[in-house]
């Protein structure tokens, strides 16, 4: 690869990927532990990674159990509670029983509404943030899945075949990373009609976001996979399979792919927060998830007119995004360090 065409982080990541492969052997038989066991031990000692891992699990659980949690602690996310709102200023009363006490800058937090209620509509913020987690994680996971599928397929082919195939795919990676992604997403929302492939409304919007991320962000995964494959294809077991008459398909799928599972999982974890931010950004701009379905980004854009009188309405959805993204980032960093053979025990 010529230096000028490098893209952020590629050198470092490719290096880490290369060494990760070669180090699997040496260390493993010396201590009689597999790389996965070593990594798990390291991960357990990494407090930051463990805590963020727990947060990630809790977030996923919260998203999955959103219907139950809102039943116990909140109200349906689309239920209007306009009796809690001062109709003239459109923000919640301090005490709905005594409207003369005025309005609450902190959004009417009570045991009934744990995070208060939205301005104007009075919808329960707690349940909207929970349901927002559903959308956010759903989009991020689906998009990451598409990236991984395309990235793995192309990366493994580029790394294994080499030659002009590799040149074309590597060039394509550079080109795809140079696209103005947000603009493309905005454009797609503008040109794709309702009802494509039976998708309408938010189903369609989710489809568009997943498509745009999957279709344009696969190079991040492809780079890692390509680097790993380059190292793997020189290994003895590949040689052995070849000499036994195995075809390319068999070698790629049965011999090389299983060795790529770990790095793919590690880098997928680091791709998820990027995708969460992307969905939230599009929703904030009004080209992502549409109301009344709750989405963190959309909530923040609805908070814009109230940023003076009701800052809580910025803080809660914003913190939801921040905590989720930070947890995934920290956990992903921890995973990467744990599997990185250059980290010493």
């Amino acid at each position, binding site marked *: 690869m010529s*230096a*000028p065409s490098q893209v952020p982080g590629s050198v470092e990541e490719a290096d880490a990927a290369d060494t990760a492969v070669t180090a699997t052997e040496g260390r493993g038989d010396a201590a009689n532990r597999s790389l996965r066991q070593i990594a798990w031990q390291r991960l357990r000692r990494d407090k930051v990674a463990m805590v963020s891992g727990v947060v990630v699990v809790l977030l996923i659980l919260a998203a999955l159990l959103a219907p139950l949690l809102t039943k116990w602690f909140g109200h349906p996310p689309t239920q209007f509670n306009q009796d809690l709102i001062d109709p003239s200023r459109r923000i919640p009363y301090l005490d709905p029983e005594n409207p003369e006490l005025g309005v609450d800058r902190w959004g009417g937090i009570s045991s009934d509404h744990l995070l208060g209620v939205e301005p104007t509509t009075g919808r329960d913020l707690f349940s909207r943030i929970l349901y927002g987690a559903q959308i956010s994680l759903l989009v991020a996971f689906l998009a990451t899945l598409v990236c991984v599928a395309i990235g793995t397929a192309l990366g493994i082919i580029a790394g294994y075949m080499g030659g002009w195939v590799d040149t074309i795919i590597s060039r394509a990676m550079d080109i795809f990373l140079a696209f103005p992604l947000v603009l493309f997403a905005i*454009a797609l929302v503008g040109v794709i009609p309702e009802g494509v492939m039976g998708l309408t409304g938010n189903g369609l919007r989710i489809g568009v976001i997943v498509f745009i991320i999957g279709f344009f962000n696969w190079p991040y995964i492809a780079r890692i996979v390509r680097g790993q494959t380059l190292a793997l294809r020189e290994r003895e077991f590949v040689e052995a399979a070849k000499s036994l008459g195995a075809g390319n398909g068999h070698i790629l799928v049965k011999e090389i792919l299983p060795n790529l599972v770990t790095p793919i999982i590690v880098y997928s974890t680091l791709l998820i927060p990027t995708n969460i931010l992307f969905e939230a950004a599009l929703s904030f701009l009004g080209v992502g998830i549409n109301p009344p379905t709750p989405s963190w980004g959309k909530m923040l854009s609805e908070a814009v007119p109230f940023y003076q009188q009701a800052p809580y309405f910025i803080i809660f959805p914003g913190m939801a995004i921040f905590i989720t993204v930070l947890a995934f980032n920290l956990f992903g960093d921890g995973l990467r360090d744990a599997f990185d053979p250059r980290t010493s025990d």
Partner: protein
Amino acid sequence: MIPGAPPPPTAMLNYILRRLGAGLLLLTVVTAVTFWIFYVLPRWAGVTPQGMAAMYVGKAPTPEALEATVERLGLDQPVAVQFVEFIRSILFGQEFTFGRETVECAAPCLGYSFTTNSPVLPQILDRLPVTMSLGLGAAVIWVVGGVSVGVLSAVKKGSIFDRLAMGTALIGVSLPIYFTGLLALSFLVHQWGLFPVSRYVPLTEDPVGWYQVMLLPWITLAFLHAAQYARQTRAGMLETLNEDYIRTARAKGLSERKVIFKHALRPTLTPIVTILGLDIGMVLGGAILTEKVFSLNGVGAYAIDSIVSKDLPVVLGVTLLGAVFIVVCNLIVDLLYPVVDPRVRLAK
């Protein structure tokens, strides 16, 4: 070739030509993809030529008018013909006839808005100063801030400063700009009054006012990027500081300052310059989120507003221009490369 020997001038020329070729290729591909998104994908998704016409000109009063638009825009032509037309319009301009009136969209015609009845490029260029002020100003802050924090962190690895800086950087990359921006507006501007509430004024009219308005958007946008630059710089510096030639430089008695700034920092800057090219290119194509949050009427805000008003040609124009910026910035970086890192010239 002997390493270290000055490269023959032909090598340099070769390099420049190769990079120019690569830039041109990138531009062609991005243009083709943009065309595909706007003209081919909708057709695959089942939009009729009439439907496409309606998307580009807004709902026409009669089916006949719509049919006329289809004809005028050539939307019923085969994709290949449309693509050639599309490219020709960009290169040589285009004319549209409305009854007896003919309007011209001069080259480079990035599209014609039927909502405002004017070519889109001049309108986009009108808003470019805002976006440029935002992007370039923020870039200065994030490069200087990010790189110096990264260098300090690497030099004082493990110190309290390093930990704090890297912690902050990690938080920085996890904070979306529409959150920090809104928080800044809510607290720094409205509650504490640290920054003035004012509208954008051009640099040429009122430099002080311009600076005051732009400062908060700059800091907000820069914070996000600075985090990434600090992390990258620190990682690069730590790697270079372990190199043999650094030991040599120290052994021959160079001052630590010289070792760090002259010998260690330079190779670290190579990947930084690459990212910078991409980032500035992206930002010039519209720092959409920042512009929206701070109500700056820039290119990005124009694109998103045009989606709301269903003025699709504007979105197409901004997308194309954004792609051009990315390609041009990449090209500039490629050409700067041999200056930053002389080894590049020797590469094949």
